[in-house]
């Protein structure tokens, strides 16, 4: 909260008081209550949910704003800097584990479970007595045809275009990164701005693809194992692109305000790296879900 303007640079900066933790607690509590009421179909449920979410956004905006102001005032010494970098490492570790779980589910279902149901390996008896008419294949919604008939989205078309868009955004964010290191502000802002625009374009096409899948291909979250793994992986990836785009937008405004220098730009570097990470996850998705 930065209530004191005099700060000893040898001491790890801790604000004297902050209202944000209690606001965060109340916001999360309201959101959860709202979500619970909504799924139980209580009439006012969604109003409570939206109020909670609005409070959450207010809190994030305010808290991060305070952190940025503290950083700009120079309250953060080397020790605080190291703690931010450690935080980034743990955040990325959790992200890697998160996607590893969903990619793992896809591989396990595709490489083991579906072939077992088809009678391979340990599944010979299961196949013989329960699913004797089923021959394993991928994509599949299993022997019961859960969710009914569906068609998959071909690798050509929108997924190919979206991969192209994300890879292009990877180039533009890298050019922006080089520009920051070289101290070229105009170039930095231009290419960072283009990256944000490409992120939004990706999300638009992703939404179009989902609409097409639901309304014309019969491919839904309920289309058995293929549908659920497909939408879990691409959906959570889309959520990460949304987050990344918002973060890049914030960083664009911070760059425009001159918050970063050639040697002092952890905020930029962390978000740029995150964007590369999200891009690599998509490349993995494109290869393992659409192509291989």
């Amino acid at each position: 909260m930065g209530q004191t303007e005099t700060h000893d640079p040898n001491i790890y900066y801790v604000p004297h008081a902050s209202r944000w933790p209690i606001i965060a607690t109340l916001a999360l509590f309201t959101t959860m209550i709202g979500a619970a009421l909504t799924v139980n179909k209580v009439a006012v449920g969604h109003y409570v949910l939206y109020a909670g979410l609005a409070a959450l956004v207010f809190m994030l905006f305010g808290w991060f704003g305070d952190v940025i102001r503290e950083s700009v005032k120079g309250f953060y010494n080397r020790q605080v800097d190291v703690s931010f970098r450690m935080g980034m490492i743990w955040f990325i570790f959790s992200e890697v584990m998160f996607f590893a779980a969903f990619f793992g589910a896809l591989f396990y279902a595709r490489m083991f479970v579906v072939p077992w149901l088809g009678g391979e390996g340990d599944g010979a008896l299961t196949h013989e007595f329960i699913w004797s008419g089923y021959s394993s294949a991928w994509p599949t919604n299993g022997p019961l045809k859960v969710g009914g008939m569906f068609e998959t989205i071909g690798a050509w078309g929108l997924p190919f275009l979206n991969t192209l868009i994300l890879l292009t955004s990877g180039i533009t964010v890298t050019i922006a990164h080089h520009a920051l290191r070289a101290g070229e502000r105009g170039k930095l802002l231009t290419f960072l701005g283009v990256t944000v625009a490409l992120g939004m374009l990706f999300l638009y096409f992703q939404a179009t693809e989902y609409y097409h899948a639901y309304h014309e291909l019969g491919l839904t979250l309920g289309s058995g194992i293929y549908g659920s793994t497909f939408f879990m992986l691409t959906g959570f990836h889309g959520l990460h692109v949304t987050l990344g785009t918002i973060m890049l937008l914030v960083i664009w405004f911070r760059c425009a305000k001159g918050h970063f220098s050639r040697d002092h730009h952890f905020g930029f570097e962390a978000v740029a790296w995150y964007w590369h990470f999200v891009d690599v996850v998509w490349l993995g998705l494109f290869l393992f879900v659409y192509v291989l």
Partner: protein
Amino acid sequence: MWQKLFIVIVFIAIVYNLGAGLYFMMTDKGSTNRTVNALTRRIAISIALFALVGISIWMGWIAPHGVVVR
């Protein structure tokens, strides 16, 4: 099969360079170009792989999901 193995190996090279970028971000603290260079390698290899996969499907060397569309 070897085509798919090759794709996976190149993908591992991409992940390695991404990881290197994170490592240099932690150790160099923005004072060197090692992070941005690792990320530049990462995007360069990614584009090369994407182009290769595109050409491979186009030429019929690999087929998405092993299903050949004629």
